[in-house]
């Protein structure tokens, strides 16, 4: 080994504790880089899994393509496979009454999938097999009153709407046109409701039978979807707006070029989130790199100042500048070698463990078996090493140049620090307040500006990152809890639609009894369920003229309204009636207008309705009912009434010929200790049969809001976010602490002769302690003075984006003093009050002094080990 390297090695061994701290510091930086790289790799993998499971496994699709153009679009290089989706259309399953008369029955969407689509799309089967030919079909899970192998007669519309993969059109928009046709299908299986919903059926699309004017959606999956492929497809994209090209973002696109292009062109919501993710990644890597560079730079400078005498002596016997220069890089090589290896190992192990621990949270949150997976590749390791080596080289460069430049005499004398009086100037007040010990402490901080700044920067970075992260977590969790005020564990919402002239009316005993029986069945099946409230909405045509009402209602009853899409006459109008139980109605009243009193609506002789609208001269009336008006603006294009169940029943009893049409029904349930996922499944099964029970062409959509699961999901999201934010924070703080430890302890140790002199001059242990105390206090106070305002500023910025959304520019230019005061209160006082993580601030204030105090104590112990006399009589350390 070269003699200079031997000295370096000896020096590193001599200061083994500091060398270890430096290696650990480098290791933490590398571990952070590793975890960031692994996180992004895992995030892309996660996005791919998520996209594949929810949208389907394809990279891009062409929408609304005439069959004649399919070959042109699928003739692309590197294509793994493609599939075709025919136009989605409406289908009615025919059934026959006892007399053998055909009548309409259940309505579902009919989709046409080519062979590959069955495994490329996200639909899954709950039973049976996929259709093999155009005469086979799979039905929704809630149509299990049929059996696999049953033949069904259906009527369906031949032309429908082009669809995007994974999308599902609400079929109520359709009406049968002239292209109606009837067909017999054989049922081969049932679709899983969690992947395909409750209103979708799929049959086989034979590509060879497509006519040239049939439109299809062409989905493409590539072996390797690159930036070039993206550009190639973009060039192929048809010019017509109706036949556009879309990409399945997240399905394997990791090229930065692609992301940039998406940022520039893509109009989807992904644009915003990609921007955030990208910005976040850059910010993370920047913070890590800066913190690492500062730490490693600092470590080398310290080590060099200790070694400068040796280097000076070596120079005096003929060592060249380049030899000295190289010695610093040798040190970097040794420390870096250990640090990088350790960092990569710890980084992968740490992030792997984190992924493993949060896996159940992900699965619970998404209800899909998708989670962050750790993948290790040579490419990743090389990227990390390159980044780490780069930061180490940058950090070692300045100390290396310095060491090479330093004159021999200065090196031997170790006179590298040239003090000026101005540099160590302190105010007279300092001495008055803190005595000579305090003054010495403060002067010591100031004597080496760069080390002082590094320590301060490390402290400030840690504090700001810690407080802002805590504020962010607090802010997000507050937002989450605000958005999560649910009145019940589960809301079940039935959307009832009718096809053609079929509908459900309030007096439809069949439906009412079916609905009541279904509800009862659910509540009986699970004793843990409690019904909190019920709410129904009805639709009604009514007239200005009471005498005409009967006719209007009668006409509507016969289905004319829906068939003609017109009202009985020009004095007729459509209204909605929202019916609530009494308790719920009280809340509704409070929401609409605080001046309304519940007593005006209950226990009245005649039915009472609330109309959300202004009273006008040509008021429409409901026969036999009292209408109370509110002055709230009505944003609907028709009248909207509210009433209690009691009033509504009274109204129906008084007007037996009026048949309002039920459009939706919802109920809120509390589930107690029951498993929400199980209950959700039960509801789907029980209410699903309701759809199949109807034989009048009604289509009932079940929508379940599982608030409990959502709460768990958001809670999990909060935990996952906190794990990553605080994990990152812990690592950044570790780097900073290593930095502070290195700087402060070396600083003190380098001054051991001064402490010995002070002791020999009669400073006792108390006095020495006092100097350490004051140094700690001054460092801490200075760090807090800088970091607290910066943190405060960030706390103010975090919610700003949120609060500013409600204001236009006009508001800002027309401000009075009162407005300004209000704005100050709103944008400064409230955020400070609400989002300042006071607990974290207290912890920070406490921890700052601990973090400074510990290396001081360590260094003091080191000094104490040494003989005072030896320290004094040493020519230099």
């Amino acid at each position, binding site marked *: 080994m070269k003699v200079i390297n031997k000295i370096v090695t000896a020096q590193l061994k001599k200061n083994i504790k500091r060398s270890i701290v430096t290696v650990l510091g480098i290791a933490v930086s590398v571990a952070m880089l590793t975890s960031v790289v692994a996180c992004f790799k895992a995030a892309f993998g996660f996005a791919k899994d998520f996209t594949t499971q929810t949208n389907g496994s394809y990279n891009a699709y062409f929408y609304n393509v005439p069959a004649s153009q399919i070959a042109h679009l699928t003739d692309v290089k590197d294509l793994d496979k493609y599939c075709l989706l025919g136009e989605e259309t409406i289908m009615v399953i025919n059934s026959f009454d006892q007399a053998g008369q055909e009548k309409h029955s259940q309505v579902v969407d009919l989709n046409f999938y080519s062979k590959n689509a069955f495994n490329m799309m996200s639909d899954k089967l709950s039973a049976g097999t996929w259709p093999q030919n155009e005469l086979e079909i799979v039905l929704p899970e809630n149509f299990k009153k049929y059996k696999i192998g049953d033949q069904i007669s259906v009527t369906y519309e031949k032309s429908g709407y082009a669809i995007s993969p994974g999308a599902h059109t609400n079929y109520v928009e359709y009406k049968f046109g002239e292209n109606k046709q009837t067909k017999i299908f054989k049922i081969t299986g049932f679709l899983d409701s969690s992947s395909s919903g409750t209103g979708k059926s799929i049959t086989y699309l034979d590509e060879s039978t497509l006519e040239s004017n049939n439109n299809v959606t062409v989905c493409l999956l590539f072996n390797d979807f690159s930036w070039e492929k993206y550009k190639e497809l973009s060039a192929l994209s048809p010019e017509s707006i109706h036949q556009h090209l879309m990409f399945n973002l997240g399905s394997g696109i990791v090229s930065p070029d692609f992301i940039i292009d998406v940022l520039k062109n893509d109009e989807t919501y992904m644009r915003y989130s990609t921007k955030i993710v990208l910005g976040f990644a850059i910010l993370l890597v920047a913070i890590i790199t800066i913190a690492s560079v500062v730490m490693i730079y600092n470590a080398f400078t310290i080590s060099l100042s200790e070694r400068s005498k040796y280097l000076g002596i070596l120079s005096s016997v003929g060592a060249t500048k380049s030899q000295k220069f190289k010695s610093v890089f040798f040190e970097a090589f040794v420390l870096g070698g250990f640090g990088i290896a350790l960092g990569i190992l710890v980084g992968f192990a740490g992030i792997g463990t984190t992924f493993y621990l949060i896996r159940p949270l992900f699965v619970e949150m998404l209800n899909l078996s998708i989670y962050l997976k750790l993948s290790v590749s040579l490419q990743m390791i090389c990227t990390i090493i390159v980044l780490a080596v780069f930061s180490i080289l940058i950090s070692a460069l300045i100390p290396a140049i310095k060491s090479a430049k330093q004159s021999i005499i200065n090196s031997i004398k170790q006179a590298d620090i040239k003090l000026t009086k101005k540099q*160590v100037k302190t105010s007279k007040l300092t001495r008055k307040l803190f005595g000579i010990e305090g003054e010495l402490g403060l002067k010591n901080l100031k004597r080496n500006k760069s080390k002082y700044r590094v320590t301060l920067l490390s402290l400030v970075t840690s504090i700001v990152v810690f407080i802002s992260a805590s504020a962010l977590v607090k802010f997000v969790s507050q937002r989450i809890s605000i958005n999560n005020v649910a009145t019940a564990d589960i809301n079940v919402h039935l959307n009832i639609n009718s096809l053609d002239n079929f509908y459900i009316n309030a007096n439809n005993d069949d439906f009412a009894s079916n609905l009541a029986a279904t509800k009862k069945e659910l509540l009986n099946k699970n004793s843990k369920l409690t019904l909190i409230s019920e709410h129904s909405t009805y639709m009604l045509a009514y007239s200005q003229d009471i005498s005409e009402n009967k006719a209007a209602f009668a006409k509507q009853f016969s289905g004319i309204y829906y068939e003609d899409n017109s009202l009985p006459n020009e004095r007729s109008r459509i209204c909605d009636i929202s019916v609530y139980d009494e308790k719920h109605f009280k809340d509704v009243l409070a929401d609409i207008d605080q001046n309304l009193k519940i007593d005006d609506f209950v226990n009245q002789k005649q039915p009472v309705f609330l109309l959300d609208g202004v009273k006008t001269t040509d008021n429409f009336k409901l026969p036999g009912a009292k209408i109370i008006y509110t002055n709230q603006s009505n944003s609907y294009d028709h009248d909207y009434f509210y009433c209690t169940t009691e009033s509504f029943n009274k109204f129906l009893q008084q007007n037996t010929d009026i048949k309002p049409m039920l459009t939706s029904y919802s109920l809120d349930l509390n589930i107690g200790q029951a498993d929400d996922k199980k209950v959700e499944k039960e509801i789907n099964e029980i209410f699903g049969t309701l759809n199949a029970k109807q034989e009048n062409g009604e289509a009932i959509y079940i929508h379940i809001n599982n608030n409990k699961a959502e709460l768990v999901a958001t809670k999990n999201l909060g935990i996952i976010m906190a794990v990553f934010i605080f994990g990152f924070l812990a690592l950044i703080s570790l780097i900073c602490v290593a930095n502070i430890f290195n700087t402060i302890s070396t600083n003190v140790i380098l001054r051991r002769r001064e402490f010995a*002199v002070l*002791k020999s*001059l*009669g*400073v006792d*242990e108390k006095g020495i302690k006092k100097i350490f105390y004051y140094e700690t206090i001054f460092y801490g106070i200075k760090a807090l003075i800088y970091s607290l305002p910066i943190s405060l500023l960030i706390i103010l910025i975090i919610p700003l984006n949120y609060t500013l959304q409600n204001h236009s520019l006009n508001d800002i230019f027309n401000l009075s003093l009162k407005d300004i005061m209000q704005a100050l209160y709103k944008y400064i006082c409230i955020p400070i009050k609400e989002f300042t993580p006071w607990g974290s601030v207290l912890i920070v204030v406490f921890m700052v002094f601990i973090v400074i105090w510990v290396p001081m104590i360590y260094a003091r112990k080191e000094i104490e080990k040494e003989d005072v006399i030896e320290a*004094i009589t040493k020519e230099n350390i």
Partner: protein
Amino acid sequence: MNIVKVEHLSKVYGKGENAVYALNDISFSVDRGEFVAIVGASGSGKSTLLHILGGVDRPTSGKVFIDGEDICALNDTQLAIFRRRQVGLIYQFYNLIPVLTVKENIELPLLLDNRQVDETQFKEMVNYLGIADKTEYLPNQLSGGQQQRVSVGRALFAAPSIVLADEPTGNLDSKNSAEVVKLLKDSNKKHKQTLILITHNEQIAMQADRIITITDGKIANDEVRR
């Protein structure tokens, strides 16, 4: 009248077979106002003796009385106060505090003791030391000779009863050496301060009232010259 009285003083490093006697059963006394030079070969134990006298180090056995008080019986805080008030120490390598100015370095023992600084006395001191124009400088802005004068000033300024100097001229040229010794001697005469000085320089030793020669931790010769 004795100001320093040393009785059976020993300082042993190590134990058993490895025991090294830096000082081996030394006894002597020094009168108030006496100028004593301690000479001896390197490693003979003279610096150890000086440090024990200054309360910086503690003996293995024996007693040291300064002004009638056994300093070996003092606890650390009492010893620190003793050093602050009774002793002025001068080192070969000056050992000034780099962040303090010349003025602050000289005043340091008083400042540590929270005592008022007499500005007239300070001016007299810096005039006496010949560094009146350098009082606002930092140590690194001074030459070696000037730094040692500051160190002398620091040792004398609190008017200690005893000044201990460990080879104060070891790092200086002959002109500066002569001047520093002259300063110490003058102060010794003027303020009747006791001065105990370690030196290798025979010429300096010859200026003392008494020369104690130490060899292998023992007093080999104690010669009173005047």
